[in-house]
């Protein structure tokens, strides 16, 4: 084996090792609220906004609070660092990324999913 190949292999090995650890640190798993409570790690929960319960933006802390119900029907208070996301009202589903803290889900990011709204439905067309 010549020197060049050896250097190459060493570099690739280092790269893969660094990549592996960085990856394990930053992996976010899909979960539900039950699982999130158990792991205490950052995870991603899909669910829907509970419209009946209060939702508000606190200007002092720049946090948006709302209630979310996961796919198993478990309800939890979610505090998002930031304002109410775009398209929040029309979202069919929301995906919150964060972790459980002091009995609520502290989200760093909330994605809104509103596929059906981008394409009209039979109901929409009847209104015309």
């Amino acid at each position, binding site marked *: 084996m010549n020197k*060049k190949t050896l250097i190459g292999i060493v570099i690739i090995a280092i*790269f893969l090792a*660094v*990549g592996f650890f*960085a*990856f394990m*640190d*930053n*992996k*976010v*798993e*899909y979960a539900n609220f039950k699982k999130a409570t158990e792991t205490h790690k*950052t995870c*991603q929960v*899909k669910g829907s906004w509970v419209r009946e319960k*209060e939702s*508000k*933006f606190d*200007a*002092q802390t*720049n946090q948006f609070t709302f209630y979310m119900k996961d796919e198993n029907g478990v309800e939890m208070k979610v505090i998002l660092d*930031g*304002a*109410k996301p*775009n*398209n*929040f*009202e*029309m979202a069919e589903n929301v*995906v919150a*990324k964060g972790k459980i803290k002091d009995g609520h889900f502290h989200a760093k990011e909330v*994605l809104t*999913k*509103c*596929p059906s709204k*981008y*394409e*009209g*439905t*039979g*109901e*929409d*067309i*009847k209104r*015309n």
Partner: protein
Amino acid sequence: MGNLLLNIAFASALLASICYFISNGGKEKFIRYGRMFYHIAAVLVISSAAYLLYLIITHQFQLTYVWNYSSRDLPWNLLISTFYAGQEGSFHLWAFLTAVLGVFLLSYLANRDIEIKSSNYKEKYEPLVMGLYSLILSFLAFILVIKSPYLMVWESFPNDVAVGFVPEDGRGLNPLLQNFWMTIHPPVLFSGFTALAVPFCFAITALIKNEYSRWMKLGLPWTLFGGMILGLGIMLGGYWAYGVLGWGGYWGWDPVENSSFVPWIVVVAAIHTMVSEERTGKFKKTSLILCITAYLLVLYSTFLTRSGVLGDASVHSFVDPGQEVYLFLIVFLSLFGGGGIGLVLFRLKSLRTAPSEQQSQLLSRESALFVGAITLCAAALVIAVGTSWPIIAKGTVEPEFYNRMNLPLAILIASINGFSMLLKWRYSEEKQFLKSLYIPLGFTALITIVLVIIGVRDFIIALLAAAAFFALFINLEIAYRIFTKDKVKAGPYIAHMGLMILFLGIIGSARYSEEVNVSLPLNETKHALGYNMTYKGATPIKGDEEKFHFNVIVEKEGRGFLLQPVMYYSEYSEGVMKNPDIANLVVKDLYLSPMALETPQDFSSSDMLSLKKGEEKEIHGMKVKFVNFDMSKFDREAMQEGKDNKDNIMGAEIEVTMDGKTQKVIIEQKITSAGAENIPSKISDNDKHTFYLLNMSVSGESAVEIAVVNDSIPKSDAPETLVLTASIKPFINLVWGGTIIMVLGFFASLLRRYRLIKSGHRKAERNTDSSSGHSKNGSRKKKSHLQEQD
């Protein structure tokens, strides 16, 4: 009619492909058929695009697609851009661009192939390249056949509307897409996707022919074009996100961004190995593999972003395209992927035994370029794995992963770039090389010391800045020398400078940005990030009265300016849309992103309560129960007759339990022509609580919303308050400037390559009658010609 156009276009493209493949066997007249069918297919695809555009512009809302994405109130440029607002249309845009580019590709190939005599027919590139390219076009047309933009509303919604129904107006364009960048970003990005098909076809053709000298020369200008236009498209998207959408940054490592970035990195790597191959004959395999991979990644990106598999992982919204398209995308991808990889494996032996010259020296430019290309591929791999993670396992990857991995790779890329410029092709004298490093390294050391002094204390960031300055200095020096002689030859160095400037811009704007939340009560000056900010109220935007400018006067050291972030309620989104406003202060941006407007409310939320019938809740230390509605004062007739001028009173009966005593209270709301008016009620005159009826829902489950106010607590009379996130983005102009310089560098290289090929072509034309083995000589001559030029 549209469907007919698309069906025939699909068939002609397929026929063109078949004819071209037959012609490759030596039946020369089939080339003419191939060309004819290709042109028919292209004209049909273009006609179909024109027809769809016509339907959109003339508001033919009986088409589901037109109804779904456009409306009468859109200005003309946005109306045109609704063409590609949905899945079907964006596939159509892609097919359209592919068809148009193919016309140029065809004439380019036909002209280049003239130099090849019919006795050397097998060396012609047009048959196979165009055969493959037509196949790609037919695939794209086929997607449109199965997912047609020409569906009528009554075909889409057979249960809801009758045949022949024409909606009055369309649903309109998503407000997030309603801006200038929507008209330019998608077409440019798709042009990049389209262009990467060309190097792919060239590489596959070379593998089929088992001939590896022509493809690279013919394909390089197209590869450069693809790299340029895709890079531009990606950054236009970045500017859109930054300037309009208010995401705060130009890059968020979102799957959609990543999936177009990965092919770009790979195509840039391909350009570098192709240039090395041109000079030294090495890295044939690598160039071929990279060109093939780049287009496969484009297809993979389409699959990722269109199939809905990333639905939970991205801020971009994905629509499930339906089972057929999903399956077809997989077929498309696996056919081209399998074919490409299979061919490389099949030719592995001849690629290996290809007359590669002696092993490259470690200290040579080609070795440096190769290591650089590998580093680029490593970055591509990191991003591709991270982006694909949601389909590999149930989970996503934090943006931090990409930052952490790509930072060292960027340092490597910048340093290798700098070193490679000082190295000669094939072999460099070690002493000479080290000597040439003195000045650039000295300069870099100086700048780095200055950076550390002014506050760059993060080691790895300082390292990246140093590497970027190092490469910038070396490229600047070379570019300056070349530029004075022949402008276009400086292309690569200009492109490198652009990238290094971009790196510096990223360091400044990402690592050293500052962000604070500010609440600005009306007319009250607050201090943030070194600026005095005063909110002066909202004004409706001229010509778009439903949107509001929130006027903020920003002042520093006597110099003031007005920033106007925008917020408005969008009926389409059923929510508040927000756009930032940015002050470009040359060395930095002041970025104001609106968060909310807090208006003084009649009741604070802690005073409000909603109760279902029979429900009891606690508030301010008492129990409140909603017993029933009280309609005794309600005049039903007046309501029915629509006597708006007559006041009407609705009421509810509640039970209040305080200090063990339960009392009945009637709370009422007066309905007047001006709206609802809340009438205060009290348990007794000397009780400090006042009760109000705010809302009642009579239909469905009976419920009321009430307010209980403790009068002894003074009501705050705060004025309306604008809540903003203010941030400083240092040196962000370097990001845009670097991108523009890089694109210009690409453009200069492209121009030079094109001229070279043209001049080579003219030369060949003059030599047409020389000898039968002329083409081989010709290519060798061209090679030496190239070397002379540098």
